[in-house]
Structure formats: structure tokens, C-alpha cells
């Protein structure tokens, strides 16, 4: 990977077919996201946000966890600074996610790469990562448009469900009653299995899990993801395992 400078590696294809593949792969997950979009729209109305305000947030911010947390902070005298600062902190995990996709993103034009990143959510990121890992194992050339296709699937469902929740839905059962809250845990579990961790990955994964559990107990919000990711990454960085036992096929 040291030698993977953008020019040396060459550009990745960025096709409509790749975007459609990402879109299709993400639809089942986006349906799960829509359950929370309805919930967000409904809560936003109860909190006094107009449809324009609630929808602008879904269109522009497009980040479920931080939008729900923002509703919690929303009040008559808007705490502008803490809303913006909290949003940034809740989304810090995206920094590591974007970095993890950089081997592929660096091989796209900056416009395509930074455009795709606008649509990156936990769900579309994880699906794209799994797809690229799979491509690499099979020796296939990845399509750079997969990320934006998957992201747009989430974007469409998130925004339609926001409107639906705000305008139509007058009451919503707790998603947990139908086990729907577990859909995300299930998806991310399946994607973790799909990464096919090797024996040398065990220690970083265990440390990440431990750090995440501890942080989740101590701090509210999504800090546990960032804490676990950093702990796992540092464990791997400090270990003496040989780098890249898997040859990179590109």
C-alpha cells in the first residue's frame, strides 16, 4: 500500500452500473433506515420543527444519529453553537471511515471522491467496504461509484421517510417491539463476518469491543464507536505482526 500513490495505481472506473449495484445492495438496509426516518420526522414535528426545517436537516445534514440528538437540544432559543459542535463530535467517526476507504477514493477524481463522501453513512460505508474487500479477494477491479450509489439509496429513503413521519404518521410503535432496532446490529454483524477476520485480527477486535463497551457505559452518544475504533487501530499499530500478510491485488 506504500506504493499506492494515485497516479501509480491508476484511476478506478466510475460507472452508472457500479452506482446501481451500490443502490440495489443498499435498499434492504435503507428500508431499515426509513423506520428511523419516520421516527425522526414524527419527533421533529412534536418538537415544533416545521416541515421545511425537518426536511432541510435531512437533505443537508443527512446523519441520523446527530439529527435525533439535535432534536433533543432543539429549543425556542436555539443553542446554535452547541448544536453545531455536538453534530461535529457525533460525526467524528466519519473521519476514520473516510480514511478507511481512501485506497479506493484516492483513485477517483477529487470531484467524484468528495461528492461521494457527502452521501457516506455508517450503512453505505460498511456495504462499500465489504464490497471492495470482496473485489480484492476475487481479483476484480472495484467500481468507484458503488459508494455513491449505496449512499443515494440511504439518502432517498431517509428523506422520503422524514416527510412521511412529519406529515402523515400520527403515532408510531416503538420499532423495538418488532425487533426492528436489531436490524442494524444484524447488518453490521454480517458485514463484520464478511470481512473474514484472520487470527492476527483477533486482538485488535477484542480490544475494540472492550473499549466500545466501556465507553458506552461511561459516556452518552456515539463516542463508543470512535473509542473502540481508535483502541483497535492502536492495538494493531503497536503489535509486531507482519504487515499485509494478504497480498494486495489491484
Amino acid at each position: 500500500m506504500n506504493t499506492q500513490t494515485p497516479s501509480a495505481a491508476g484511476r478506478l472506473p466510475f460507472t452508472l452500473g457500479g452506482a446501481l449495484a451500490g443502490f440495489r445492495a443498499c435498499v434492504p438496509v435503507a428500508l431499515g433506515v426509513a423506520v428511523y426516518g419516520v421516527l425522526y420526522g414524527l419527533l421533529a414535528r412534536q418538537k415544533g420543527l416545521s416541515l421545511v426545517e425537518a426536511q432541510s436537516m435531512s437533505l443537508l445534514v443527512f446523519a441520523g444519529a446527530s439529527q435525533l440528538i439535535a432534536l433533543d437540544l432543539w429549543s425556542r432559543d436555539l443553542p446554535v453553537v452547541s448544536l453545531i459542535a455536538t453534530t461535529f463530535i457525533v460525526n467524528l467517526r466519519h473521519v476514520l471511515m473516510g480514511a478507511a476507504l481512501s485506497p479506493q477514493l484516492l483513485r477517483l477524481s477529487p470531484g467524484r471522491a468528495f461528492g461521494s463522501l457527502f452521501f457516506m453513512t455508517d450503512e453505505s460505508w460498511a456495504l462499500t467496504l465489504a464490497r471492495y474487500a470482496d473485489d480484492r479477494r476475487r481479483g476484480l477491479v472495484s467500481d468507484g461509484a458503488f459508494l455513491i450509489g449505496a449512499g443515494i439509496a440511504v439518502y432517498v429513503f431517509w428523506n422520503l421517510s422524514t416527510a412521511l413521519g412529519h406529515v402523515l404518521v400520527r403515532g408510531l410503535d416503538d420499532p423495538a417491539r418488532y425487533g426492528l432496532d436489531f436490524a442494524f446490529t444484524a447488518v453490521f454483524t454480517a458485514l463484520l463476518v464478511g470481512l473474514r477476520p484472520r487470527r492476527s485480527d483477533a486482538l485488535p477486535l477484542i480490544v475494540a469491543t472492550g473499549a466500545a463497551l466501556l465507553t458506552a457505559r461511561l459516556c452518552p452518544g456515539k463516542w463508543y464507536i470512535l473509542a473502540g475504533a481508535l483502541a483497535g487501530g492502536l492495538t494493531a499499530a503497536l503489535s509486531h505482526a507482519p504487515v499485509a500478510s494478504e497480498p494486495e491485488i489491484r
Partner: protein
Amino acid sequence: MSPLATALLTILGMALATYVSRAAGLLLMRRMTPGPRTERFMRAIPGAILASIIAPSALTAGPAEIIATTATALAAWRYRNLPLAMLVGVAVVFGLRQFMG
């Protein structure tokens, strides 16, 4: 400023903060050539993020969730089909919660 204008400007600020977080990882990686340590760090990040996302809801929510996570992992390993694994997880957790409260 009208309340709506304030709200929309706040939302714009939140949008900017979110986009910066989404773009920052690539911006950083454009500027550096990773050494072996950074490379090991970056290689471990995807798995570590996924494990961290699921850890609280999979392991500390209760026995139903632990069993459902195990079932999901087995289904994903055996069938390599994401929607199917998702259905298995939701169905198992839904079924078990009927009995376990």
C-alpha cells in the same frame, strides 16, 4: 433575524460540520504516505469500527440479543447473503423477546 432564518442557518452549520467529518479522512490520507505502523492502524480500522458499532447492542442488551447476534453471524458465514442475515437476526430477536420480555 427571523426564527426560520436562524434555524436554517443553524442547520447549514450542522451540515457543514457533518460534511467536514465525512471529507476529513480522505483529506488527511491525501497528504500522507502511511508507514508500516499507520498501515497496520488503517488496516484494523474497518473491523474495529464494525465491532464497536455492534458491541453494546449485541453484547450488553441481554441474552436475546447475544443469541440473535450469534445466529446472524452464523447465517452470514454460511449463506453470505446480507438481507437474509438481517432477517434471521430480526426474526430471532423478535421471537426471543416474546419469551424473555
